[in-house]
Structures are given as C-alpha cells and as structure tokens.
C-alpha cells in the first residue's frame, strides 16, 4: 500500500474527521429527540471511514457529491460542522436557508453537489460538472457515492453509462452496506460481487474494506489520480455495514443481532485508533484530546444554532426564479387580509 504521502498531520486530521462525523450525528440524534429536528435524520454509523477516506483523496477545486450517508466527506471538503446543525434544524442561516433538509445542499465554493431524494439523479448531474472540467481542459475530478440499493435505479445506471461513454473524470464509490432501508441487498438483487456491476459499463473497479480507512484512502487516491490524468472514470466498491436504522424512526429490529455484533467488531473508528496507536501516530491521550476538542466545538455549535432564527415565512416564496419579479406573489387571500387590516 502506498501511503507515503500521508504525514502526521493527515493522520490526526483523518481521525478528527472520523470522530467529528460520529459525534455530530450523536448530537443530531439528541436534537431529534428534543424536537429540534422535524424532518428525517439519517446516520452514517459504521460507514464513516468510507466517506472520510475517499474524500481525503481529493484536492481543492475537485467536486464531491455525497449520498445521505457520507456526512464525513463533507467535513473533509471543508463544511463547517455548524452548517450541518443549521441545516437539520432548519435555521435561516443553513446552507438551504431552511428550504431543504439533510445534506441536500450545493456549495460551489466547497465543490459540494447535494443529492436530492430521488436516488441516482445526483450521479447524472455530477457527470455534467466533470464534463465541464473536461471541456475547459481543467485537471479536476469529481467523486460521488451510491448505495447498492440506489444502484438499481434506472437513473443511476444512466449516470454510470454516461460517465463511461463520455470518459469523464469521475470516481464513483459504491457503498455496499448490506441494507437498503428495510430490505437486505441479497433480497433485492441477485448480484454476488458488487464489483461485477462495473462490467456493465466497461469501467475499472476496485473493492475495498470500507471500514479500513487507509485502504479506502489508497483506492480512492489511485482512482482520483487516474481520473485526473485523463484515464476516465473508476468505480470503488466499499464493503461496509449500516450500523443504524435507515433513519431515526427505524428501530432496526429486522436486523439479526449477530450480524450487528460481527460488524461492531469491525468498527472503522476503533480500527483506525488501533493503527494510530500501534504505529505511533498518536497516544491514548492524543486521541482523547482530539475527541474532547471536537466535543467542545460541537457544544458551542449546538448552543449557537439553537439561538438562531428559523427562516422568516415571507422567504417561502423567494428564489424560485433567477429574476425575483418572476417569483410568485403573496396569495390573494393573504393580500386580502392585509388590505382589510390596512383599511
């Protein structure tokens, strides 16, 4: 494995991103239970290494389009954790100004393309971004993610096929986490080795242990470099496991507990901690210091966010079109009310 480029700062940063991802989601769970989050809440528990490791292989100017379970990738790309808290709690200052939730935001300055709910769409849109890189002759790369469930959508297929046909600088990470909502992947498909799916597009593919941060990083780096140097798209299959329910409301009771136990033993954060300790990158105290630091940052962030306002009702009708004059007017029934008050 060629990790020669990773230095001590990288190892610390990677660890920080892992624990940030997990601890922030724990905060979100609390906020959800407290009623501060009224929409769906999705966790990436157990899959943090895939998101963090792949995104770490990108550079400034690259673009990344996360699936719902790739929160870690967003922090690697520079998303301030507070933005995620604002987004879920529908604050006016959230990336979507309260108009959409979860990680559905697009932030050009960070090279982030948000997903929308209909699965598979985002891959197709990211193709267009990477196409522009090629049209402009810029050595920039796009990376995106896809659950194995989402890979069954027609839209996802068209996205893979288009990336391949146009030979775009794309890295597509297929996250095989064994479940799609309440259905095990073996039940909703006959695929045995998900790496075979790349064959349908004539794309190079590499399978990795998605819970092994450094293995993930290495595969991503290889694919990113190939794409950057004009070698076209590549697929990474990350073998991992969804350790939480599909969303907050899902008790996960349909999952055999042995399966959970088995995968708990492969927890990506625990495994990376052992690497850090064994290879002397960090001491136990060093690990704790990072965790504490993240914890304090999150406490401050949560306090700040909860004191911030929700978007004003009037903003519900703005930003439909580029020209504000084309946005819809206040409904006539409300203008009536205002008029009669004025009288």
């Amino acid at each position, binding site marked *: 494995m060629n990790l020669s480029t990773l230095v001590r700062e990288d190892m610390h940063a990677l660890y920080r991103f892992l624990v940030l991802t997990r601890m922030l989601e724990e905060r979100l769970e609390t906020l959800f239970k407290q009623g501060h989050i009224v929409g769906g809440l999705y966790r990436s528990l157990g899959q943090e290494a895939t998101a963090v490791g792949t995104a770490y292989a990108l550079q400034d100017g690259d673009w990344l389009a996360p699936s719902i379970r790739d929160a870690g990738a967003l922090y690697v790309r520079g998303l301030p954790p507070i933005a995620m808290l604002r987004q879920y709690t529908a604050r006016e200052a959230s990336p979507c100004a*309260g108009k959409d939730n979860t990680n559905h935001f697009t932030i050009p300055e960070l090279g982030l393309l948000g997903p929308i709910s209909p699965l598979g769409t985002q891959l197709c849109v990211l193709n267009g971004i990477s196409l522009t890189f090629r049209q402009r002759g810029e050595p920039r790369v796009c990376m995106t993610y896809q659950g194995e469930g989402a890979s*069954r959508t027609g839209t996802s297929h068209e996205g893979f096929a288009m990336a391949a046909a146009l030979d775009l600088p794309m890295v597509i990470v297929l996250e095989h986490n064994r479940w799609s909502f309440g259905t095990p992947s073996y039940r909703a498909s006959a695929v045995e080795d998900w790496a075979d799916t790349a064959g349908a597009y004539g794309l190079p593919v590499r399978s990795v242990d998605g819970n092994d941060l450094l293995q993930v990083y290495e595969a991503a780096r290889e694919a990113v470099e190939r794409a950057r140097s004009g070698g076209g798209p590549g697929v990474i299959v990350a073998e991992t496991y969804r350790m939480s329910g599909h969303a907050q409301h899902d008790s996960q009771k349909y999952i055999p507990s042995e399966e959970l136990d088995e995968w708990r033993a492969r927890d990506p954060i625990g495994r990376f901690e052992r690497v850090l300790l064994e290879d002397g990158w960090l001491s136990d105290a060093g690990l704790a210091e990072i965790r504490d630091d993240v914890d304090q940052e999150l406490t401050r962030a949560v306090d700040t966010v909860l004191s911030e306002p*929700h978007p004003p009702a009037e903003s519900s009708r703005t930003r439909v079109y580029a020209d504000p004059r084309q946005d819809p007017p206040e409904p006539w029934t409300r203008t*009536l009310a205002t008029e009669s008050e004025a009288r």
Partner: protein
Amino acid sequence: MSETTYLEAIRDAMREEMQRDESVFILGEDIGLYGGAFKITEGFLDEFGPDRVIDTPISEAAIVGAAIGAAHMGMRPIAEMQFIDFIAPAFDMIVNFAAKSRYRTGIGAGIVIRGPCGGGARSGPFHSQNVESFFANVPGLKMVAPATARDAKGLLTAAIRDPDPVLYFEHKFLYRRIKESIEPGEEIVVPLGEARIHRPGTDLTIVTYGAMVWKAGEAADRVSAEDGSELEIIDLRSIRPLDIGSIVESVRRTGRLLVVHEAPKFGGFAGEITAQVCEEAFEWLDAPIRRVTAMDTPVPYAPTLEDRYLPQTEDIVAAARWLLAY
C-alpha cells in the same frame, strides 16, 4: 363498531381484497420484510407469502412495468410508491405504457399505483408533493384521492377491481389523524367518478379533495358560526373521472365556486374544474370562480416556510368571504 384510521382503512382494503381474490398482490420497496415505510403492509408477508407481497429493488419504473404485465395476464397488482414523489421515475411507464395500452392494443392495464402524497408533515421538497396534475392530461388513467377513512377503503377496493390503471393518492397527513367507524371486514366500494357532498350548503360551493376537505370543513364551520353563511363542500374523491355533474348541480344552486387544492396554483387541477364549470354553468355564476392552493414554489422544509406555502383554513375563509361579498 371499531374506530379505523385512514391508514388502517387502506391496509384493510388491501388485505380484504387479497383474501377475497387470489389475483390481487402487492409489490414495492420495503413492503414485505419491513412492512412498508408507514407500516401499512405490516404482517402481509406472513399472511400472504413472498409471491403476493413482493419486495422489489429500488426501481419504480420496473415496479409499475411488472404490475402492467401481471395485469395483462389477469392479475390485479397494487404497486406501492414509497412516497408518491417517487412516481416521477415511473412517469414514462405510466403515461406511455399503462395509460395507452388499451387504446393501442385492446389489452388493458388494470393496475393500482398508490403512495403517500401531500405536505404538512415537515418532509421537505421530495416527500410532500401532490402529483395529480402531472397525470391529469393523460387519457387512459384514473386518479382518486380519499379524504375519509371510509373512502380510503372504498376507493381502494374499487380501484383494485377496476380494469383500468388507477393512481391512488393517500394523504400522509391524514394517515393517523382521521378515524371512522368501520366494521372489521366490512366491504366498502366507492365507485370511481362519484363525488360526495361533505357538507351541504346554500351560499357557496367549495370543490376540493384529499386533506383540503378538512381545512375546507374548518373554514365552513367558521364562516357559518361567524357570518351565518353556509358553504357546501364537495369532496371530489375521484379526480378522473371527474363528477362534473355534481359540481355543476351545486354551483347552479349556490352561484359561487371556490376550488381548493393543496398542489400549487399555476397549472394545477383547479384549472380543469374551472374550465368545465365555465362551460356548463356560466349563466349561473354570480361571481368569478376563484382558487385557493399552495404557492407556486417547491414544498419547503422549515415549518415556518411550509405553513406559509400550504393553503390554510384562513385562506379559505378569506376567499369565501370575498366571494360571498362579491
């Protein structure tokens, strides 16, 4: 008599039809092992087995396609969209295959496509839409949208038995909020294309469907209590076929029409109702036909925004007063 929620009524309609008729089956995402995102099909896998309660891949077009093929063979499939918003990837299959099949080939596609629609549940732009207008201009389709538990059961039973493709829009906001007395096992069939007078009245006709029936009801109560005017509420139940006869009859009595729906205004289904009433009751109109609808934007997530987006009881009250004063 037991109290049956809107959600239970949907479940009962499917279960009872599956018990009555071997050719009825369900397919969709997470409906078997998991019992459905809203637990509507909980227990179905055990009761009916995996050949009649089919967990599919995330493939709405293929789900609807398989339903069409099975219907060609005489089966009566029910295709669940996890949220009705996800009918969009199946649009081609519905509009081009299902809707046109009988006309083109003489072989019908008697399928039901059902799923939770509508806002108010803080579910954001992709889990809150009302999609009837996407399909309104497509001959060959039928569409229903129940407002009550009895209609939820009766329309679904009728839809399953109908030989044509029926889109069944169940409003998620009503799932657990609406209850009604329904005898367990009671067979209810609400014929497609028959509206229902939800509240009789003499001064103004409100035509609506789905969750808005209840907001219209609140508005009517307020106007009655505060102003003494009586609003008649017609709950369409079926969007296509449209029971224009009942609407026209009412408008000819009241002389005033307000159309209320939850989808945005521009290009929404209120236009069709307006046009037909204009054609058939123009001389009886004492005031312009007006609309109360959601705003012309996507459905926003934040409660402050969604509340402003959605048509509210006060909007209906204001519109009714404006029309009555006209």
